């Protein structure tokens, strides 16, 4: 059963109070390596059938129309994850996208 992952992030130039709060918490916990935090959403969509180009085009449309608000957010990724399960810990150094 394929899973389509849609990633949505607040636009870079706009305020992200959640990210700011997390960054503040990190600093208070003594971490000073992380200089910025932004918090977005990750949607995992499952389909019964196989994912073809038409499905992906439809998901991109959904991502733009419903899953994100173009005034304040960007869709930063639409990815098909093969196999039914997303690992509980991804390998290091893996690059999601070019």
């Amino acid at each position, binding site marked *: *059963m394929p*899973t389509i992952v849609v990633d949505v992030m607040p636009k870079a130039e706009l305020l992200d109070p959640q990210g700011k709060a997390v960054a503040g918490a990190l600093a208070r916990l003594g971490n000073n390596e992380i200089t910025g935090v932004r918090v977005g959403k990750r949607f*995992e969509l*499952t389909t019964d059938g196989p994912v073809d180009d038409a499905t992906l085009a439809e998901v991109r449309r959904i991502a733009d129309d419903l899953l994100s608000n173009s005034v304040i957010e960007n869709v930063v990724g639409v990815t098909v994850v093969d*196999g*039914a*399960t*997303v690992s509980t810990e991804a390998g290091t150094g893996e690059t999601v996208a070019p």
Partner: protein
Amino acid sequence: MDAPGIHTDSSVAEEAGSRAGRIDSTRRHRTATPLPRDVRPYRGAPSAVSTPASPTAVADTVENAKATPEKEQPYGALGLKPDEYAKIGEILGRRPTSGELAMYSVMWSEHCSYKSSKIYLRQFGQKVTPEMTKNLMVGMGENAGVVDIGEGWAVTFKVESHNHPSYIEPFQGAATGVGGIVRDIISMGARPVAVMDQLRFGKIDDPDTARVVHGVTSGISFYGNCLGLPNIGGETYFDPVYQGNPLVNALSVGVLRHEDLHLANATGAGNKVVLFGARTGGDGIGGASILASDSFDSTGPTKRPAVQVGDPFAEKVLIECCLELYRDDLVQGIQDLGAAGISCATSELASNGDGGMHVELSHVLLRDPSLTPEEILMSESQERMMAIVEPEKLDAFLAVTAKWDVETSVLGEVTGTGRLVIDWHGEEIVNVDPRTVAIDGPVYERPVAYPTWIDALNADTASTLPRPQTSDEILSQFLALVASPNLASKNWITDQYDYYVLGNTALSFPDDGGMIRVDEESGLGFAIATDANGRYCQLDPSQGAKLALAEAYRNVAVSGAVPAAVTDCLNFGSPENPEVMWQFSQAVEGLSDACLELGIPVTGGNVSFYNQTGDTPIFPTPVVGVLGIIDDVARRVPSGWQDEGHNIYLLGT
């Protein structure tokens, strides 16, 4: 049930500890299930035709139980004592099926059966005068008591605990606590109109307290605000005795026209048994899964969550849906699903009715298709209701649930057999007299012992403490008091609670009690206040309980309302500790005596035992709520100074 109200904490330490092992006899083994498993589509349009659950599980049928009397059953792991298990065999004349065992074990647990408190709670029903009960439309024993407030209006109210879940996952625990009490109110036929919360936390500067406090208050804020129910008051105390066992009590009030009163009973053979609301998942199975975490690995059986996630939106829709069903007279009997889920709803509805019930369990709509029938019977998934519907009204019923996008399935019908029969894909897995499950559970007269330490505690009075001698000492004591978390302003909590919604809030924090207008024309309304002081109760549980009642009574009276009825949430340590049992017996006796003296009846409430950290019980904490009636809320009296030039009087001694 003849104990006040229904369920206690959905997770009680005792049960949690011993019921960790679930019904392994029928669990089919699965390989690790791929993620995400929760893929049952939520479709806008509900279906009357249910999605059949997976039929692959081999059920322990009644036939099978008869044929295999010697089979060993994990009753101990389910929290049943050997004599209780033997009693079940006696009642049935055979060993229980695993489904029956699931039902008896949850329904005979402390929190559903009131087995340790029952013999004391009777006093609330006995110490009454006809004058006290003349305005009671429904007294103790139903989901919540109902008080006639005049002009054709009635009010129903109740307070309940969600202590243990709120320690494990403060946000969701507290949120689902609000959700649970509100469903009790809906199931009486009422529109919920207000909530309150009574909170006790550990030491304010303990590292774990922030997790609990902020989780709990934001959970209450989230669920209550999202339901659109004004929060009109509550209590917040800090004391180290609650460190590992915070108290999260939630109260809800609803209003109804007299003719809208609904009760939890299944009458009329041929009437349909309908389950509606959220789908059933593996949440809080028997309240026991908390300690089942050792089996939470990917190779073992399917994970069963330790916590329940609340969906206030689903509940808000459920409220509106139920009110429309009542308005159109489509419901004959109704019960909310709380602790013990379908086990509780079917057995209580059937016992309170005049016949029996026949249900096909595979018609239950599932969130997790891998659930076994026993798990479905025990699941505590939130935001569900069960209704009894006349067959000719079923279509209209389904049209209303469809309008609100509430998923619905018809599970079976009321019968004239006097038996509760539950099938799983056509095979009979439960066949019991419902009263033996829901009403005639075990009753214990637990040992009681006077606490030896209490005299020394009482002898150690404040008179031995040094008095401040200098103005500096007085100043520093004053500052210490002002800075103490229990006296400081609670705005940082109450500012997160909406009291405006519904537009009828006449009083709320920081007033002594909350007040709600019921009738927009006449101004008829009610006031409500809750109080408890665990430290007083530790010194003297009987006096402490009386003082709690007196304070709540005063808080209602000073608002301008006439006190009319009482609800209570009795938070205590383990009933297996004789000293705790003594505290409990004293508190109930004191409270019932004081109710008689003040002339107001207890209409319902809740008992929460096993509140302790290690072996140390919490202070006895009987939270008492008093409801009063006011003819016109325009004549309310707020706590603050209103206008310049008013005189100030001090009354009393």
